[in-house]
């Protein structure tokens, strides 16, 4: 049993996507942890507010001083480094809270079944009927700017996915248990959920969560990009891209001149999301029994 599990974990790390994904994640963790040394903030200031380094509002291409260039009077390198922390903060907070809430809703629906389940699932469907980004835009507009409000908006519209997953698992297991329950006596359903359903659903939930992590970070960045996410000048990849917007759209044929405003924060974001997706992919390959062979 344990050796089997160890083997699964070995396969997880040795698969191409698992190896790449975990390495990338480790890299981002290190960047986030070492941010104060990689990009020292000015003493006594909130490190998440990107300090002004230039007085001219014009973007500047990478130089020896500002290796990723300057945008909106701010050092892009500084924003990319500290933005890693914002990305982790949004991704992890939203995923953890929405997963827990989703687990609760799904478990209640799956456990009680019948009308409770029907009602909860209808509600879930309704929440799913508004495009995620559109819903987040409305919510963020109403709540006002700030990363915390972005997090709230995202939680509000992402608990449905784990809820559905866990409900499906519970219904399936209930069906199986029904057969054995007929043979044995006195089955405690709560006990079954805690002892059988949750452990069995851990991997599907984890797989889904890591896949969702990517799209959450993208959506949060999209809000900042649109100017309704994190506060202005907050260290956040989407916010950095927001600087690029005006220059690129107004810049006519000169879009290419400002490549660095997109490429560096964009690359950070793509790699970050890619890392989570690769991890999710590897998890799925190893743990999803349907796709074995």
């Amino acid at each position, binding site marked *: 049993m344990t050796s089997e599990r160890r083997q699964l974990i070995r396969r997880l790390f040795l698969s*191409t*996507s698992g190896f790449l994904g975990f390495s990338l994640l480790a890299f981002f963790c290190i960047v986030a942890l070492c941010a104060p040394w990689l990009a020292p903030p000015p003493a006594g200031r909130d490190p998440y507010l990107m300090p002004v380094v230039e007085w001219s509002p014009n973007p500047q291409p990478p130089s020896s001083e500002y290796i990723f260039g300057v945008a909106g009077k701010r050092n892009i390198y500084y924003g990319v480094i500290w933005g890693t922390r914002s990305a982790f903060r949004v991704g992890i907070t939203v995923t953890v809270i929405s997963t827990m809430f989703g687990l609760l809703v799904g478990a209640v629906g799956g456990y009680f079944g019948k009308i409770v389940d029907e009602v909860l699932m*209808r*509600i879930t*469907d*309704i*929440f*799913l*009927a*508004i*495009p*995620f*980004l*559109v*819903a987040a*835009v*409305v*919510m*963020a*507009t*109403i*709540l006002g700017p700030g990363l915390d409000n972005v997090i709230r908006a995202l939680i509000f519209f992402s608990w449905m996915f784990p809820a559905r997953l866990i409900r499906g698992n519970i219904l399936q297991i209930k069906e199986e248990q029904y057969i054995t329950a007929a043979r044995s006596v006195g089955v405690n359903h709560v006990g079954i959920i805690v002892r059988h359903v949750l452990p069995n659903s851990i991997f599907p939930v984890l797989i889904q969560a890591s896949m969702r992590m*990517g799209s959450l970070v*993208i959506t949060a*960045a*999209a809000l900042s*990009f*649109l*100017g*309704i996410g994190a506060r202005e000048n907050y260290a956040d990849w989407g916010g950095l*891209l927001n600087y*690029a*917007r005006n220059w*690129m*759209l107004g810049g006519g*044929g*000169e*879009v*290419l001149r400002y*490549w660095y405003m*997109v490429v560096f924060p*964009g690359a950070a*974001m*793509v790699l970050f*999301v*890619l890392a989570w*997706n*690769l991890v999710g*992919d590897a998890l799925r390959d190893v743990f999803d029994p*349907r*796709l074995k*062979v």
Partner: protein
Amino acid sequence: MFFYIARRLLFLPLTLFGISLIIFFMFMRLSPEQRVALYITSPERLRGDNVERLIDLHGLRDPWHIQYGRWMGNVVRGNLGWSNVGKEPVYSAIMRRFPYTLELALYSALPIIWLGTWLGTLSALYHNRPLDHTLRISAVVGWSFPDFVFGFFVLMIFYSILGWFPPGTLGAEADAVVKSSQFRSFTGMVTIDSLLNGRLDVFIDTARRLAGPVLTLTYVGFAYILRIARSSMLEVLGREYIRTARSKGLEEKVVINKHARRNAMIPVATVSGQTIIALLGGTVIVETIFNRVGIGSFMATAAQQLDFASVIGGSLFFGVILVLGNLLVDVSYALIDPRVRLD
């Protein structure tokens, strides 16, 4: 089949009611002063100390259920308030922009579903061989690309370097043609109307401008379909009826294209609804980047300028469109799967 669709239709008003409630409770967090814009039909009324009077008039301090009823009454009559961004009532602002967004969504949905299904099937047929690995990697990478990052790359490459796909909805000349009195509008979708009017130049202009956004949405969206098509094809290929088909001596081509494909398409049909949902969300970003007219860019601008009436009207509209779209998907699903059809 009948009951299946009847059931869906029965839930339709319920879902719409739910959506309106969610949106209602979201905007109830706004102050009455901010909410006034949702009720008025022209901006003159907002002048001076009228605001307080309007709040009283529309009962914006009443209990929530009364306010909800009143708001719904307005919404049903097509009064979604005044749009500061559009400088016109929200409803007509949305209706004027809808064809552009629909056009973009339609042109993107087709390649997403077609490409995703085709490549996903290919990937499954070459399971664990180099082609499969290549396709999976490009799918994961595509899936990881935020549309705004990819959109910028498309702008850089296809506009700045190659000069092929300019941003915007229409060039100045084409725009003048479309706005002229000789140009008759049939659908509101410029690609179709220009052909019906025999203006190939307008068609080419608008098609070039559509290409960039379509490319962006396609690249970001096909990955999901690919993944579903691949795994469902793999699953179907392991089914016993595939073995039965082979045991009858059928050519491999027939086994795959007839017996496997149709079954594998069932999950793809279910998620294509979700894909279109994501696609409509994506128009918010893509229309902004490519500077296009549409509900997405309308909502984005409105959100930045705190034009609440427009944001809420837009989301309500998206919700309704999606519910109707999903109904269509469900019906098409029933057409593929006889088990559902005959229920």
